[in-house]
């Protein structure tokens, strides 16, 4: 019995090294099976907890009618815009605060203050200022992404050993080149951490904002489904949220980290 299990396990390990995506899906199988069993046993009425098959069917019809692709695109575009501005504003600000003592003195307390006023806490006033729509959502997501990026960039810039600056200066690097050659790469592992946190928070804030002020997007899809009493679509929305984040993390963020901080020995694998 035991050798058989061992052989099966080693075959599984070989399989997942060859196709890593299998290793991603397999852990979810027991979860789906348990879900399926619970619904098949009729422990809850189907309208209360639909089974996996119904969720898949609803996925099919929402894709077919074009609602899901459209909403998905809306959410992803908002996330992309928010991330772009979060990085474009957050990294330079973080570098400024990290390098300049006066800037640190002036801005650090302000940053901490506004970081504490979480994303959703801005909604009431933003709705009054910008109404229900894209501007409000963009402000919220930029706001959410920017703080982890700024704070981690500051940390990264400040953790660069002083001898790294000195070495570059003694090799003739000017102040501007130091930014590109030392400060940015030195802070990159921390910037990536900030980005990962920022996108994670941003993704959640976006869904919450779509639920409250949205007229499209995955968050809106779920809230709209609640209005129609469609638990299937709510579950579908939740599954999409989890899957999308997994894809963003493992297809975009993790490979960047492997190619930079881990390769350089600045981050442990």
């Amino acid at each position: 019995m035991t050798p058989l299990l061992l052989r099966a396990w080693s075959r599984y390990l070989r399989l997942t090294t060859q196709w890593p995506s299998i290793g991603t899906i397999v852990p979810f199988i027991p979860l789906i099976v348990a879900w399926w069993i619970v619904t098949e046993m009729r422990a809850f009425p189907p309208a209360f907890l639909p089974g996996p098959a119904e969720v898949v069917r609803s996925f099919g019809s929402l894709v077919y009618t074009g609602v899901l692709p459209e909403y998905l695109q809306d959410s992803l575009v908002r996330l992309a815009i928010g991330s772009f501005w979060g990085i474009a504003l957050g990294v330079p600000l973080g570098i400024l605060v990290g390098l300049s003592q006066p800037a640190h003195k002036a801005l650090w307390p302000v940053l901490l203050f506004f970081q504490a006023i979480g994303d959703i806490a801005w909604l009431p006033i933003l709705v009054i200022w910008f109404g229900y729509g894209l501007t409000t959502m963009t402000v919220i997501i930029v706001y959410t992404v920017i703080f982890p990026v700024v704070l981690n960039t500051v940390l990264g810039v400040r953790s660069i050993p002083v001898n790294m600056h000195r070495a570059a200066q003694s090799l003739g690097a000017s102040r501007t080149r130091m930014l590109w050659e030392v400060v940015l790469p030195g802070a990159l592992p921390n910037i990536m951490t900030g980005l990962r946190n920022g996108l994670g928070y941003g993704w959640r804030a976006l869904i919450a904002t779509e639920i409250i002020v949205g007229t499209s997007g995955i968050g809106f899809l779920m809230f709209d489904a609640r209005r129609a009493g469609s638990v299937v679509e709510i579950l579908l929305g939740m599954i999409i949220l989890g899957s999308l984040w997994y894809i963003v993390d493992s297809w975009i963020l993790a490979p960047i980290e492997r190619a930079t901080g881990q390769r350089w020995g600045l981050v442990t694998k």
Partner: protein
Amino acid sequence: MKSLTIRNLSKTYFDVHAGANVTAVRDLSLEVPAGEFVSIVGPSGCGKTTLLNMIAGFIPHTGGEILVGGHPVKGPGPDRGVVFQSFALFPWRTVLDNVAFGPKMRGVGRAEREKIAHEYLALAKLSAAAGRYPNELSGGMQQRVGVVRALANDPDVLLMDEPFASVDAQTRMTLQEELTRIWEQKRPTVIFITHDVPEAVFLGNRVVALSKGRVLEEIAVDLPRPRVWDDLNEDDRFKALSGRVLQLVRSA
């Protein structure tokens, strides 16, 4: 390669913890002709690292002057190459790009600066490691990169701050032999800071003993070159010189 002149140099700073002014270097004068290898020894706290940091321009001096080839030092610059105890290689650059960094900052084109880098890597027997990242190398190899990175930028003066203090004893002897070999080939002006007396004697044309921020004594080392440990370990003149320097440092 140029000469280094230090006249009446001093460094006083306010120590926040002690709540008083501290003089790390006082009225220090030193003349290093172009192409000389000078070892500076002294006990901890004698001001040797402060001295090197002032020559490198990392910290300002509070009195006197430092001249490299007749020009006063104002801040760090590529005329003074530095080799650090902590290596201070750029982890995000390959070995080749680390060594080519100085020429790149000078505006040397890619093909030319990589040619320079390869030449220096060959000098330190590092050609095979050119494409690797520093964290993939042993400490001894990292410091070889540190030395040739500074040399590849063709500095007027090479400043070395206890460069071999953090590698194991066997590697250290190999690195010392390689450094004398490279010095004999390139003849740079070198200031070598160490607390290791045999190392100072083995490498230098001259050993300067510091104490309490002052030059205690200068001792000429007239041992023949090329120098290798197998010859010098049992050499009476080497032993006598080391003994004298050690006595000086201990009395300091």
